[in-house]
């Protein structure tokens, strides 16, 4: 078994051999685990359907005959809790399989590419506090963290979901996802003292209303395409242009296009570049219970995603000075 993957970049050289020697032999075992997990998933699903449907019917009949306002709400909540528990229980084999797949397959691949992989993530956004690009949120979820160095550039990234928690008029909690995508951070080669922020363009009125950067000056840049998509604010006009070279603008544009024209945000702060790339789907999910892992489409997709994010590193190269 092999995985054809164009080894374009230096860190990808020898990937074909690595895959044949290290990953292919494990895939057979992982495939057996997938079949086992699928069987277990299906069995649990059948058990739940057979148990929940009669239980639901019984509850309906019971509450119709013995309706009481005090007990009916409690009974209803019990039913909801039972369904949630059943879903969790049915999903366990799938979840365990996906975690095992990442540990056995994705971790060595990340290792080969020069990254330390953490399935649980590292809460990278905790370091985005002063960047000015983080959406207002009350809770966050993160997973699939990668950290490493490429061509002397330290780079870390992970999948992040930022959640705003509010309460409706009846006091019920409502969780709204305000950002779903990738957070990335890298150390810059250039030295700078100020703070420069790049955000999505919100149109004339939107930009005028977004007056969140009182201490910042608006930076007018030469690239009309870039100006159309992004708004730039900085504490230093010259430094902002030192960082946002024409080549950088071109590359940031390319990164945005690589992620379906994502309205990304970036911030230069404390010798680092921070990026938030909205994407909305799981970038590093290479496996599924329904599809054999022996076909390597999922892995190829993940490798493509990894390459796309590693290419963000090019933003840091000394071009266009």
């Amino acid at each position, binding site marked *: 078994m092999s995985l054809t993957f164009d080894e374009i970049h230096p860190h990808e050289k020898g990937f074909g051999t690595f895959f044949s020697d290290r990953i292919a032999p494990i895939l057979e075992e992982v495939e057996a685990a997938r079949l086992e997990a699928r069987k277990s998933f299906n069995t649990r699903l059948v058990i739940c359907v057979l148990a929940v449907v009669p239980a639901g019917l019984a509850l309906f009949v019971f509450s119709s005959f013995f309706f009481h306002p005090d007990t009916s709400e409690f009974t209803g909540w019990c039913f909801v809790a039972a369904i949630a528990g059943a879903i969790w229980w049915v999903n366990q084999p799938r979840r365990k399989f996906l975690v095992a797949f990442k540990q056995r397959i994705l971790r060595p691949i990340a290792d080969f590419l020069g990254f330390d992989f953490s399935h649980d993530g590292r809460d990278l956004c905790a370091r985005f506090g002063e960047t000015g690009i983080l959406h207002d949120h009350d809770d966050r979820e993160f997973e699939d963290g990668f950290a490493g160095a490429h061509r002397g550039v330290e780079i870390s990234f992970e999948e992040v979901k930022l959640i705003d928690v509010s309460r409706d008029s009846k006091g019920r909690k409502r969780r709204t996802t305000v950002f779903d995508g990738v957070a990335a951070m890298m150390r810059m080669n*250039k030295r700078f003292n100020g703070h420069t922020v790049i955000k999505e363009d919100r149109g004339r009125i939107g930009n005028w209303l977004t007056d969140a950067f009182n201490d910042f000056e608006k930076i007018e840049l030469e690239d009309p395409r870039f100006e159309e998509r992004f708004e730039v604010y900085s504490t230093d006009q010259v430094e902002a*242009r030192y960082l946002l*070279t024409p*080549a950088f603008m071109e590359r940031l544009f390319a990164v945005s296009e690589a992620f379906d024209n994502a309205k990304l945000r970036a911030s230069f702060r404390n010798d680092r570049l921070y990026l938030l790339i909205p994407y909305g789907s799981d970038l590093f999910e290479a496996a599924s219970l329904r599809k054999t892992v022996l076909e390597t489409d999922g892995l190829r997709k993940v490798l493509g995603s990894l390459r796309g994010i590693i290419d963000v590193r090019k933003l840091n190269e000394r071009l266009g*000075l």
Partner: protein
Amino acid sequence: MTAVLIIIAVLAVIIWFIYAGIIRKRNKALDAFSGIDVQLKKRHDLIPNILTIAKRFMEHEKELLTEITRLRAAAIDAGPEKTTERFSLESALQNQMGKLIVAVENYPELKSDATMLNAQRTYSEVEAHISAARRFYNSAVNALNNAVQIWPSSTIARMIGVDAMPLFEVRETERAPVAAGDFL
């Protein structure tokens, strides 16, 4: 009568806003100019060091080294008053320095000299700052020139004696596309 007074008051406010806008734009352009000045001085200070190192190895580039020395002296002499001439000299100086950096490639000993490598790195950094300062200056001057040349602000600019300022343009040779593939 009241209507006339209101119209006069409104006109006065509009004129004041236009006047304040022009002054603000001119001050911003002057501020940007001083930013360039600081960066250009860094270049002027660095060039003698690079030439001193280069002279030890580059026997066949004497003409180029002499030209760089001449352009540097002329750019310093031009001062901030002769802006257009100075920008032209600075542009020519940058062009010649670019040629020198390319010529270094033909001298393996010089190319691997630690002092030269360090000087080249610093020069590259200084050029990056000059480029950024120039872009800010051109952006500020562009806004000022639009105000000075488009009516009705052009009339007010003429009355208060604010003129258009020259752009700091780079020579065509410096605009040659970067071979991006070499860096990927």
